[in-house]
């Protein structure tokens, strides 16, 4: 009996070993490029739209409109390219779900460049779309993720961040002029608190990601388009008093400390907040321009909802245009022509950037939407950020990840609010000091490499 058991044990152990070894040794080979002289991004245009064919898989993050708007897109696309069959896949958590797939070759034909991919690794996954020189003439925001003078993605939209507010609540509260500086903004929120029943500023703390929207307005606080990608990298401690980030998030701390936010931040609800803002139960939220249309559509009072610049003490009011996700093409795709056709159509003809993303199109041929021209007349400037110099490409992102400060992530923003409402015994300065410590440690480590 015992002998048999031992034999069986040995047998199964070896079975397992075989399975494990077989599983481990299946690393994919690098696929070599095709032997043609001209890159696909030039050759596909020479073909007749009728000639381009194939099954195309397009991955998107818009689970909300994949069955409606996107189906329309496919129809319109097929009017020009009748022989391409387009399928969509919508991912709820794009960054998290695409990562494991990118370790295989199966991540759709058209997708976005995940922000998590280090910039220098982009060519391992994506098809070049043109040289930086050519692309810069035609598109905005393509320099951010270029590698060695080649562009691998085009922003699906350029959006800006500000404060979305309810006009009728402001009126009821007696705020007659839009607040421009931080002090004016807090004064306005206090009026809202005194004179109305609305929540002055709704943080959406529970969902978490709305807090990351604040980061998009740091340039407004800095009042300088060079700050974010250029000047910030010269400073190992970018969170000292007087630095833009310090000033920027001090507003978050202050509104929470003065109880100008929702009563219990832990039980907020994003979907409900849109409806409540539309109904006049919420006065302001800090969000990107993409949310404007969603909030206007969340009820019957679309005209009450407007957008103003993030309050700043800087001399100029700058709305910085930030690139949304970059649409890209899988380098292992078997239908590159069709993929290029789709990207080209999506950027130029779909209207996605204005209608669905509340921003402006990356294509320079498409005029600004009316809402923006109005804001421009009032003295706001819409500007692109200065890209990082060549020797600092991707450095900001690297330091940010290594330090776990997470400029675009919510955990540290949540800590600011927790401290402000008294759930943590840290002052705002303590928090900024700890950011500084983490940041400078990572900065030294990476810069000295």
């Amino acid at each position: 009996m015992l002998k048999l058991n031992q034999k069986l044990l040995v047998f199964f152990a070896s079975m397992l070993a075989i399975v494990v070894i077989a599983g481990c040794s299946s690393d994919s080979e690098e696929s070599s490029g095709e032997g043609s002289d001209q890159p696909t991004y030039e050759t596909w245009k020479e073909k007749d739209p009728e000639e381009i064919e194939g099954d195309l898989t397009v991955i998107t993050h818009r689970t909300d409109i994949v069955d409606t708007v996107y189906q329309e897109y496919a129809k319109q696309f097929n009017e020009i390219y009748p022989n391409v069959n387009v399928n969509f896949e919508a991912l709820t958590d794009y960054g998290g779900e695409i990562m494991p797939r990118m370790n295989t070759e199966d991540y759709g034909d058209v997708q976005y460049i995940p922000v998590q991919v280090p910039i220098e690794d982009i060519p391992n996954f994506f098809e070049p779309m043109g040289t930086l020189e050519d692309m810069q003439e035609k598109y905005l925001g393509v320099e951010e993720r270029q590698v060695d003078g080649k562009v691998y993605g085009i922003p699906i939209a350029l959006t800006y961040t500000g404060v979305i507010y309810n006009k009728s609540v402001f009126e009821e509260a007696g705020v007659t002029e839009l607040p421009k500086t931080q002090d004016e903004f807090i004064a306005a929120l206090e009026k809202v608190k005194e004179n109305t029943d609305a929540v002055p500023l709704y943080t959406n703390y529970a969902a978490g990601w709305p807090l990351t929207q604040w980061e998009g307005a740091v340039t407004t606080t800095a009042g300088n388009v060079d700050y974010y990608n250029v000047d910030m990298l010269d400073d190992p401690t970018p969170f000292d008093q007087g630095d833009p980030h310090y000033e920027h998030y001090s507003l978050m701390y202050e509104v929470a400390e003065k109880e100008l936010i929702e009563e219990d931040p832990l039980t907020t609800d994003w979907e409900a907040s849109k409806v409540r803002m539309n109904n006049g139960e919420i006065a302001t939220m800090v969000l990107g321009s993409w949310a404007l249309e969603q909030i206007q559509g969340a009820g019957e009072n679309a005209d009450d909802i407007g957008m103003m610049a993030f309050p700043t003490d800087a001399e100029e009011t700058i709305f910085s245009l930030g690139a949304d996700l970059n649409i890209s093409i899988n380098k292992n795709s078997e239908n590159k022509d069709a993929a290029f056709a789709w990207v080209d159509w999506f950027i130029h003809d779909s209207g996605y950037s204005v209608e669905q993303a509340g921003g402006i199109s990356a294509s320079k041929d498409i005029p600004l939407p009316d809402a923006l021209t109005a804001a421009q007349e009032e003295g706001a400037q819409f500007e692109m950020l200065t890209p990082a110099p060549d020797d600092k490409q991707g450095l900001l992102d690297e330091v940010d990840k290594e330090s776990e400060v997470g400029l675009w992530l919510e955990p540290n923003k949540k800590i600011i609010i927790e401290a402000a409402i008294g759930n943590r015994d840290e002052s705002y300065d303590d928090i900024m000091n700890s950011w500084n410590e983490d940041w400078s440690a990572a900065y030294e480590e990476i810069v000295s490499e």
Partner: protein
Amino acid sequence: MFSKLSYKRQRSVIIVAFLIVPLTLLGTFSFLPVANMFWYSLTEWNGFSDKEFIGLENYRTVFTDPEYFRVFTVSLYYFFGTFLQMGLALYFATILSFKVRMKNFFKGVIFFPYLLNGVAIGFMFLLFFQPEGGLDTILGLVGLGDFTTHWLGNPDVINISLAGTSVWRYMGFNFIIFLGAISSIPNDVYEASEIDGANRWHQFRYIILPSIKIIVSLNLILAISGALSAFEIPYIMTGGSNGSATFVIQTVDTAFKYGKIGLASAMAVILLFIVIIVTAVQRKFFSEDD
């Protein structure tokens, strides 16, 4: 052909044939990923680029940075919740194994939460804990309105609320196992003890508890491992904010928010070892003297 083999041969052939399928599945979906995780934990890898072998560097980072270990204090809440959960489960299982009116109804009520989906429970309790929500209303009705607080907003209470939710959810599972174990005790033992003048407490203390000792220790092992790896309920309800992050939430964040797959794998390996050690220690304590 097969019938010519000796009985022992036949038996082993059949055993092997029957076990191939489950073991292949186990190997493919358990052992292989774990083996891979061990390998990742020795590398620096962000999920996209090439893996860089760095030996035990990740483990050193975890063990030398107190920030990674501070979250284990949160696990203590779940750990103490575990004992409450076991106590309640054992209590109800004992009571419902005797003659009680509406016995099956109560069994159903206690077991039901375990059948619900964790996400649904998370959202249910979010509403329940909201200011002016279910819990506050109930407390107000019974005159305890002064005791209301922000159940998730108050950092001293948040982990108790979450651990309580977890107890509510998993108690039914322990309960059913205990109930099964208790019902396997033959009835005539109780009758004999009643003739000897034993009351209900004596019966529990001297008959039920010794008979189900193994099941109790098994449940304890499961519950303590569960406490260490608490994840679902706090992740859904608070995302680990406001001081409710458990070790697993921190591991997931390290991997998928900060792109440190190597470091997160090392954390996962450490957790695995902690669970193995806890289990081994318990086996020693509760080992049967046979």
